[in-house]
């Protein structure tokens, strides 16, 4: 019984954090596929989203308004970032692009210290804080929110990319940029759209996690890294796989923390990354695509 409750607990923890990683990882995948850029500043969007929400709601806005406004602002920031830094440099080498996104993350982090200071900030949970007990394991309402919102966001993304016309255009642009151009689809517009979108998703992730862990200017780095791993494990080209990867990483982390030692937590997830890269470079869930050689 006890071991079952521990198992459940680990699973809950893994799913909660996994859903946060998932939101950021989807952003990675979208950005990477549309612009070819591995955006090391992705985690910073989470930081901006969380801190903005905290400021807005402490300024008196109701929580839901603060959340929406914060996401919109971060999307704007993301779009600006795309125009100012990614678009002009899109033809540079991989190393140069990586460094550019890292430079941007410096700017975001420095600006955050200036605006919000160095102390951590807190956000009240969306709906109460009384834990729900299942088999002696504890589930917090905020965890439900986290999993729920990320699944909803995933469903939203699915709807956007598969059911809406603009979404299909973005997808088309990913699959075959050349042909998309022939259809009159502007890749530049899609690139702008996709980075704003992934910035918004990142912001959402940050907002969800703020009530759980608090928010501070430096929260973006590690979230970004983990989401990276998730995206790569999923193959970097496929958003649903990235989400699975994110949950997997969340669960692996929880289990290595629960059964091993949390000091090795990061190393374990990176070791998983290496194993996947070495043995399944197309990702764990690489399904047979319709593509022919």
């Amino acid at each position, binding site marked *: 019984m006890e071991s079952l409750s521990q198992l459940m607990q680990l699973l809950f923890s893994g799913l909660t954090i996994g859903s946060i990683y998932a939101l950021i990882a989807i952003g990675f995948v979208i950005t990477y596929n549309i612009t070819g850029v591995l955006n090391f500043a992705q985690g910073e969007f989470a930081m901006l989203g969380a801190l903005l929400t905290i400021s807005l709601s402490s300024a008196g806005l109701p929580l839901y308004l603060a959340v929406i406004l914060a996401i919109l602002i971060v999307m704007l920031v993301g779009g600006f970032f795309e125009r100012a830094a990614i678009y002009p*440099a899109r033809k540079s080498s991989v190393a*140069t692009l990586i460094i550019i996104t890292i*430079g941007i993350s*410096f700017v975001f982090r420095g600006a955050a210290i200036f605006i919000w200071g160095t102390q951590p900030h807190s956000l009240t949970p969306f709906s109460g804080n009384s834990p729900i007990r299942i088999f002696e394991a504890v589930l917090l309402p905020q965890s439900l929110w986290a999993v729920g919102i990320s699944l909803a966001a995933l469903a939203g993304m699915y709807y956007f990319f598969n059911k809406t016309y603009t979404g299909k255009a973005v997808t088309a642009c990913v699959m075959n940029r050349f042909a998309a151009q022939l259809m009159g689809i502007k890749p530049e517009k899609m690139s702008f759209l996709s980075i704003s979108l992934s910035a918004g998703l990142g912001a959402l992730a940050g907002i969800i996690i703020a009530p759980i862990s608090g928010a501070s200017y430096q929260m973006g780095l590690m979230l970004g890294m983990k989401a990276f791993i998730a995206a*790569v494990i999923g193959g970097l080209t496929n958003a649903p796989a990235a989400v699975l990867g994110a949950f997997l990483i969340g669960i692996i982390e929880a289990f290595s923390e629960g059964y091993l030692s949390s*000091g090795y937590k*990061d*190393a374990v997830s990176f070791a998983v*990354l*290496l194993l996947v890269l070495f043995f399944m470079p197309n990702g764990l869930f690489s399904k047979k695509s319709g593509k022919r050689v």
Partner: protein
Amino acid sequence: MDIKKFTRSYRFNLYGITVLLFAVIIFPFLVPSNYIISTFILIGLYGIVCTGLVVLMGHAGQISLGHAAFYGIGAYSSAIVSGKFDFPPLAGVLTGILIACIVALLIGIPSFKLKEHYLALATLGFGVIVFTFLKEWTSLTGGLNGFFGIPPFEVAGFSFTTDRSFYFLVWAVLAFGLWFANNLIHSRTGRALKSIHGSESAAESIGINLMTSKLKALIISAVFASVAGSLYAHYISFINPQLFEVMTSIVFLIMVVIGGSSSLWGGLAGAIIYVWLVELLKDWVPLLGFSTGGEFEIVFFGVLLVVLLIFKPEGLMGSWKERKSLFSPQKKKVQDKKGAAL
């Protein structure tokens, strides 16, 4: 045209290199400030790491986001061998080189099947794993409390205790490293690396084994990083695992990218720019009226970095090289000849 002219086209220009060497040698006597000499010691150490990275990135075309691991391996090897077991410092340096070679081999074989972003992430993961070992293997490394009491570097009874003597040591190693790397990249091995960078399939078609060539480049750069790490440990006398975190790897990459990986001098140039920029921002940013703390320095640094790379995506030395390097004037003559030939 004979081979002398050919080799002169890349060998260091005697005039230029003499001036440079002279400048490097008299510098500490002109500038008596230990602070400035220290910045140059750091530049020298970073220069060594980055020269190795230039060979790996600029010539073999392989990206690494995990070089802090090799730097750390060197530092901790020296610390443990000479600080804990009281062997002479040179033994620590050699241990570091040996371990770095083995680790490079182990990580290189699976990694080099990967390309670009995937390779970057794999090396990043490798860096995190090494960092975790340094952090968690407390019985050997002291863990996060750090490792202190590393003796000064000593060779043949001479101990490098002052900043000035250490400056000469580091720059001598750097000069040797540059010379070695320059010889190497203009040899059979170097051509093989460069041709992989140019076109992997063409390189294979002339019989170049991609894997062994890339491994050679990785091992060389790992040794450079390890030596620099060893020297760093002896210089600073206190190290802790956080010095060898992912961020340090990123800093190395920043240096190489802003310096320009296509030129041998790119690594050193990047190290100079990075160290100076950070130091100068410390003085300049408060002059602009921001005096709260370091956040503006970070913002300014980030903005400068992005602007620089948007306008000079090949790095400073990269574009310099297009104008025919200062250090190899022969190319200019060839240029004239081209004009005549057309």
